[in-house]
């Protein structure tokens, strides 16, 4: 029977979280969709009970039409070599808030700082929410989908005037960037 290992793992986890939806994406990849208030309990049980000791990453997806942010937590197991991705949705505001898991995994605070400066999600309870990539930035969070990079760059920075003849010919024929 295929996916024996993954079904074994799901059967361990499903009784404790009955409303969560488990899917098997492919061999060794399991996806869990759950509501955002259950995530902290899930992370505690992952680390202490089911031996998923490695937090690979925390990533964020911007769903503009649904008006939500989706946070994805990637957990990895060293013994059975299975990756479990926990996906939750939080409402999208100017500054969304969520709780931190950096007291379970210390390096999680770097992922949370990154998401804070790129998307604008504030993680409550964390000791340190300073920027570290975009220091001295005074614009909107740049990875949101309603931030148009080219327009911001053309307006904010000063360019030189450069209008040679050969570029005009190329643009007339339909090539080149504006």
């Amino acid at each position: 029977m295929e996916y024996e290992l993954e079904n074994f793992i799901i059967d361990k986890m499903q009784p404790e979280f009955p409303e969560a939806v488990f899917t098997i994406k492919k061999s060794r990849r399991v996806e869990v969709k759950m509501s955002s208030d259950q995530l902290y309990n899930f992370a505690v049980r992952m680390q202490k009970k089911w031996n998923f000791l490695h937090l690979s990453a925390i990533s964020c997806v911007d769903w503009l039409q649904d008006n939500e942010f989706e946070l994805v937590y990637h957990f990895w197991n060293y013994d059975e070599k299975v990756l479990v991705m926990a996906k939750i949705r939080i409402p999208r505001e100017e500054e969304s808030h969520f709780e931190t898991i950096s007291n379970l995994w210390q390096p999680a605070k770097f992922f949370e700082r990154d998401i804070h400066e790129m998307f604008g999600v504030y993680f409550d309870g964390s000791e340190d929410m300073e920027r570290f990539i975009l220091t001295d930035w005074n614009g909107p969070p740049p990875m949101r989908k309603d931030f148009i990079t080219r327009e911001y760059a053309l307006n904010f920075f000063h360019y030189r005037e450069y209008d040679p003849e050969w570029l005009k010919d190329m643009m007339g024929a339909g090539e080149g960037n504006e």
Partner: protein
Amino acid sequence: MEEKLTQRSVWEKISNKLSKRSLWMLHYCTGCGAIELPPTMTARFDMERFGISPMVTPRQADILLITGYLSVKTLKRVVLTYEQMQAPKYVVGFGSCTINGGMYWNSYSTMKCLDQYIPVETYIAGCMPRPEAIIASFNDLIAKIDRGEANSWKDYYKNYDFYKANQDRTFEGPIETYNDIKADAAMFNIK
């Protein structure tokens, strides 16, 4: 920012002729272009025969070589480094990212035009320029010093308000420097 050629005194002519033969270059290699500097310094395209040798602290260097793009985070440190160097000092913009943005022209966090933040003496075109191009442009810089036209460091003291306004607009707050430029200009009588 062109400078009207004033008549140089005999002492200035002699000192230009002698000090153009020994220029020390600061190893500030944070862009992609730094990879072209080791071939220029070693045996094949020997740069030391012109008197140019690498130096590691800004207090002792004459040339600040900006190799490639500068993000806003690095630009603040470059401005602080530039102000710690001792006059006369020359900034050489290396590669097309310092001229008009280069490959990263539509990025939200790299600066496009180095001339707005610190005064630049010459540019080297290319992405990346080959060591032959680097040596040719250093020879141009030496010839420019010989003619007495390499005076862009004075420009920083004279137009400090323009540069400071650009710097403050780009960074999050007013930049805190440790050198008082106006007081230095008055103390050392720079016109």
